[in-house]
């Protein structure tokens, strides 16, 4: 894939109202660390855990294997299913998409590959755990590809963590290709550490009558830019992109959530809820785009940010770009503070101010929290909220 012909560098991906050029995310040295430790997965959970270069846990049921389901570390998949991997990678997020995605395409040396053939219903929630081993000071460059065949159904829970505390960068590009009639729920909890500066790009292609729903929980502690996107290419394709995030200390977290309505009668929903503490910055950009010819489509978005500190900075920017008349669309956005009446009500029942605030904040993110696919994932998100709220008084 190396190309020696000199060419103008691609532009950096756009994250409106987020200044991240100085993070130097386009200068990465892929790490090569190995480990034998499994950090998060426990038998018999379905799925895979990849840490650095190592796959330390993998459990795929006999039934799934007999149906042709592939769940592998990216390196193993490139060896075992080279042609398939080569054919698919870059199909959703092109290698020319932007400078950071292109660089990921050139440099990734780890990741996860999932292939689900047509007419397969995966009953277990499929866990995909990616850990950045930040021990040598080198960077994490990972690629995830999830292919869902026609009329198949799967729920994915992806997690990302930093192990180790060296100051490093991470680039993770995640492609989801949902074929005709596929039903996909893609939940993720991103928890990169304070010393990890990262770019995460998740995008799905949604074919005719397929559904891809994102439940995207951002609990990273470092500086990070995140893109979540759905291309509703097929007739009647649907995508709900739900995002929650909580920022602390001095971190900056910038998001762009995009739904592109291309097919007729497509339905796109963006729903974002963020909480900002201390001196941190959280920016939600929501983009709903309906192209000409996508008749009968619907693009809705709602982004709300709660500021818990006067020194915090928050933004919720809705953008609707519509090039077709026969559509419905709408947006709502707000930046506000904790509702005093709710606090008063909770406290009037004897609940302390601290606990009441925690309940209100959890409630604020409750709609997305409730959609996390497992009880364990819901509890994990609640634990993350509590962990981050400990910094409230800093």
């Amino acid at each position, binding site marked *: 894939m190396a190309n020696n012909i000199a060419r103008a560098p691609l532009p950096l991906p756009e994250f409106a109202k987020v200044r991240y050029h100085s993070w130097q995310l386009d200068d990465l040295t892929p790490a090569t660390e190995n480990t034998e430790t499994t950090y998060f997965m426990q038998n018999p959970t379905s799925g895979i855990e990849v840490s650095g270069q190592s796959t330390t846990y993998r459990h795929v049921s006999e039934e799934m294997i007999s149906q042709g389901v592939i769940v592998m570390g990216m390196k193993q998949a490139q060896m075992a299913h080279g042609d398939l991997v080569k054919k698919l990678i870059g199909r959703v997020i092109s290698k020319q998409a932007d400078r950071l995605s292109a660089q990921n395409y050139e440099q990734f040396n780890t990741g996860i590959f999932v292939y689900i053939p047509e007419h397969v219903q995966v009953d277990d929630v499929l866990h995909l755990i990616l850990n950045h081993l930040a021990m040598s000071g080198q960077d994490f460059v990972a690629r995830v590809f999830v292919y869902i065949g026609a009329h198949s159904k799967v729920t994915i829970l992806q997690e990302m963590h930093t192990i180790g505390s060296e100051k490093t960068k991470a680039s993770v590009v995640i492609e989801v290709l949902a074929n005709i009639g596929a039903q996909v729920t893609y939940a993720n909890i991103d928890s990169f550490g304070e010393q990890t500066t990262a770019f995460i790009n998740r995008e799905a292609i949604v074919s005719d009558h397929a559904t891809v729903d994102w439940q995207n929980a951002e609990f990273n502690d470092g500086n990070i830019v995140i893109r979540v996107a759905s291309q509703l290419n097929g007739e009647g394709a649907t995508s709900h992109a739900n995002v929650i995030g909580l920022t602390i200390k001095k971190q900056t977290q910038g998001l762009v959530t995009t739904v592109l309505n291309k097919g007729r009668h497509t339905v796109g929903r963006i729903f974002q809820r963020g909480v900002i503490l201390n001196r941190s910055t959280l920016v939600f950009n929501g983009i709903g785009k309906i192209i000409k010819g996508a008749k009968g489509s619907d693009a809705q978005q709602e982004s709300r940010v709660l500021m818990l500190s006067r020194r915090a900075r928050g933004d919720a920017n809705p953008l609707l770009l519509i090039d077709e008349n026969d559509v419905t669309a709408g947006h709502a956005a707000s930046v506000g503070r904790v509702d*005093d009446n709710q606090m008063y009500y909770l*406290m009037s029942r004897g*609940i302390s101010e601290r606990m009441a605030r925690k309940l209100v904040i959890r*409630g604020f993110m409750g709609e997305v929290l409730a959609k996390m696919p497992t009880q364990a994932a819901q509890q994990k998100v609640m634990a993350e909220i509590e962990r981050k709220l400990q910094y409230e008084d800093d």
Partner: protein
Amino acid sequence: MTTLKVENLHVSVAGKEILKGVDLIVNTGEIHAIMGPNGTGKSTLSQTIMGHPAYQVTQGNIYMDGQNLADLSVDERARAGLFLAMQYPSEIQGVTNAEFMRAAINARRPENDQINVMSFIEKLDEKREFLAMTEEMAERYLNEGFSGGEKKRNEILQMMMIEPQIAILDEIDSGLDIDALKVVSRGVNSMRSDEFGTLMITHYQRLLDYIVPDFVHVMMGGKIVKTGDASLAKKLEAEGYAGLRDELGLDVHLTDEEINAEV
């Protein structure tokens, strides 16, 4: 015995004086009703006792058993034994009713002695059935999408779960049909004991047919102008507030007076 004592209470909201010297004593074991025309300060009294930040005490004091409430935050007042069933309860998405009530009960218990989940559920089921509330109610988000009647029932359910010493019920009857009113009243009556006192705020005598008070106070122009027994409420029903005002020779304007005069 616990005593709530309101002494010469003056309260302002946004710079305007609403309460102009209220005196009141509520002991556990007693049921008090405060009646009065619209805009006379009944809700102001209840919110001030609970400690709503928008209500400013400019003069006078409120005590619970000698403890001055001015020194206590809203949650501390609640833990001291006060409860306010609100006229307009907040809706809180993402927090279930059951979880909220458990947090409220646990807030009153030491950290190493939190209520056991099974005993909590048993108690909740018992009280919920007593108030003819459905099982799914417990798992719904706090007051979210509840009808007016469901919210009132939920306030009473919370009261029965928390078991306060003194409960203030702010227009718990408003917006209830007669069947719901009976259910809510049954809940309040079930709490009646030497360990429990109530201050009910209402416009209508009807509520007092179901929860018979020991004392009835009439509030007008930011003060309690008359106190009597249950028969005072019946008299008011018959003669209206204007009749009482004229009898007492008070110079108080009643919001709805002109309208009634035209009828």
